[in-house]
């Protein structure tokens, strides 16, 4: 199983230029903010938007090559798609929806019905075969859409925000269900989402897309330990800085130095990441060990679970995670100055 795609196209203000290589089966999650080009990339892979530049090959079969003017039409690509709001045909029954692809690809009526029923059984919906899509719950519609996309045995499965139509209560359960169904799929799945939890739990590999470019790719662990963009760091709730390496410190733009415990990479540009829970706040200048101390102002506080995240502005803006007790005892909400302290061992530095 291999997908190799170089996709270059412009659409409105979006300038998409993405190189994507998947050499294994499993779930690849495409994560990115709104308007990053995720859906456009998916549509390009499915052949619904022509490439201006680039080439798409699936299992060594060229599906599209802009330079050679090769373009396999959508209906002939072995690609299944689960669209954002499922797009079940409203005038057909659930069974007819699932059988549609088989019929379109030449399977006889009876066989298509039997296969479609099998697919519905697999997603646990054989009792809704004669229902119209309107009568389904969101979770059921999602499973029907999945069954419909899988019925034609695609080699690549694309899912566009498969859980975005769900309400909060049902999400976790549906995510587990989806994860289970995707695991039975022998080919590659590409799942689009803007939700980090979905991305981390569904994906074996993550690809982060921002403004039409891949900014980072890797396993969820790699991403969460070494974010390489503001967006990823924000998603993970981490403080990310970029600067120049200088012995055991990194020099940020503006001249401010962050001191790390481990030797930093010798080369020039580096990232430094600081987890918010490693940031200590003081009302008076702390004494003793912390190597990084600076002054700031608490701009905002928000409660996350049983912690409070303090957004601190100043010469080096940072987010600190503190206990509600600390907020009360230090009167962090009065807007006065605070001292921020970060131990050198908590500053993780890696090459940019």
């Amino acid at each position: 199983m291999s997908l190799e795609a170089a996709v270059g196209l412009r659409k409105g203000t979006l300038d998409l230029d993405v190189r994507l290589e998947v050499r294994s089966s499993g779930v690849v999650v495409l994560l990115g903010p709104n308007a990053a080009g995720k859906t456009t990339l998916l549509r390009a892979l499915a052949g619904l938007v022509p490439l201006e530049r680039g080439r798409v090959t699936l299992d060594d079969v060229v599906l599209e090559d802009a330079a050679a003017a090769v373009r396999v039409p959508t209906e002939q690509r072995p690609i299944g798609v689960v669209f954002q709001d499922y797009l079940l045909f409203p005038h057909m029954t659930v069974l007819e929806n699932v059988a549609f692809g088989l019929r379109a690809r030449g399977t006889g009526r009876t066989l298509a019905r039997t296969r479609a029923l099998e697919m519905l059984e697999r997603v646990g919906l054989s009792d809704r075969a004669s229902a119209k899509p309107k009568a389904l719950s969101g979770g059921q519609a999602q499973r029907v859409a999945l069954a419909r996309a899988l019925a034609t045995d695609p080699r690549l499965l694309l899912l566009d925000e498969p859980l975005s139509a769900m309400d909060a209560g049902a999400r976790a359960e549906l995510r587990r269900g989806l994860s289970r169904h995707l695991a039975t799929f022998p080919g590659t799945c590409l799942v689009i989402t803007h939700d980090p939890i979905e991305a981390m739990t569904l994906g074996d590999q993550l690809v982060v897309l921002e403004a039409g470019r891949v900014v980072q790719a890797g396993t969820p662990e790699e991403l969460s330990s070494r974010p390489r963009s503001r967006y990823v760091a924000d998603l993970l709730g981490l403080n990310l800085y970029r600067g120049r390496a200088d012995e055991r410190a990194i020099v940020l733009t503006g001249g401010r130095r962050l001191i790390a415990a481990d030797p930093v990479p010798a080369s020039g540009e580096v990232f430094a990441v600081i987890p918010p829970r490693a940031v200590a706040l003081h009302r008076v200048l702390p004494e003793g060990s912390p190597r990084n101390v600076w002054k700031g102002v608490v701009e905002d506080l928000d409660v996350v679970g049983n912690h409070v995240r303090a957004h601190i502005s100043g010469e080096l803006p940072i987010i600190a995670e503190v206990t509600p007790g600390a907020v009360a005892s230090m009167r962090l909400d009065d807007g006065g100055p605070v001292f921020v302290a970060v131990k050198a061992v908590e500053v993780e530095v890696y090459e940019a």
Partner: protein
Amino acid sequence: MSDGDTTAGGRSREAAGGLAVVAGDAIAPPPRPEPPPWSAPAPATMRAARRGDERAPLGFVPLAAVAVAFLTLPLVALLVRAPWGSLPGDLTAPGVLAALRLSLICSVGALGLSLLFGVPLAWLLARVPFRGRNLVRALVLLPMVLPPVVGGVALLLAFGRNGIAGQWLDSLAGVTLPFTTLGAMLAETFVAMPFLVITVEAGIRAMDRRYEDAAATLGAGRWRTFRLVTLPLIAPALAAGGALCWARALGEFGATITFAGNLPGTTQTMPLAVYLALQNNPDAAIALSLVMLAISLAVLVGLRSHWFPSR
């Protein structure tokens, strides 16, 4: 996905997923700049309030009442003055039945021609951004606003025996259109087709094209997609456009009498028969009018779900 064993696959996957723990831990605090969509309360019930408490501008109620009276009074008069006693006889007179039959044939024929040529035209106008599309649309819709008599004259100049196309039809194919039933049908098509085209085009524009994308990803070619997905999805527009088109064809008078004449049994449709009967047998004219009123009402009732969607 040959004959996948769901359970086994699912387990192996879950076992392999130490992922979830690591990830869940790292992202416990949700990101700040973009609050997760589920945290926001659904702003659903905000705009429910204003309905039924509308206050009409001064004077609207009496003006609207006049409009309603003006539009309904003639129909009431038709019912009041109908010669109910002699109605069965009037309606079964040979000329009346022939006119009714001819009207049905011509109007249904016009509807068929309009569907055959008008639906593809509507599709192209809605979907293909070709140069001069607006001009084509304007030309196609012109017969809607053109006085029908002018349409009849124009048809005569085009398809008449000496018309610019008619002379060729006559000499090459031996087909004569003026003063034939086919001519009456074409005159009705000329006037009625734009109603179908404009309605169906709007329907195609309004439909969610992503359904067609979905069909394509499932392996359906263009024709199959059109037949099994597009057509059913635009069915309401098709029904409305078809009904408008057919009703317009049924009532067509000016173009028909100008181009096809008024030959009983051949080109004398109901409206023509009504007009003629009014000269010498008013009761028959009223009876014929009643029939057409009944047909129009039936169409309106049939389409009420489209024009007045139930809330």
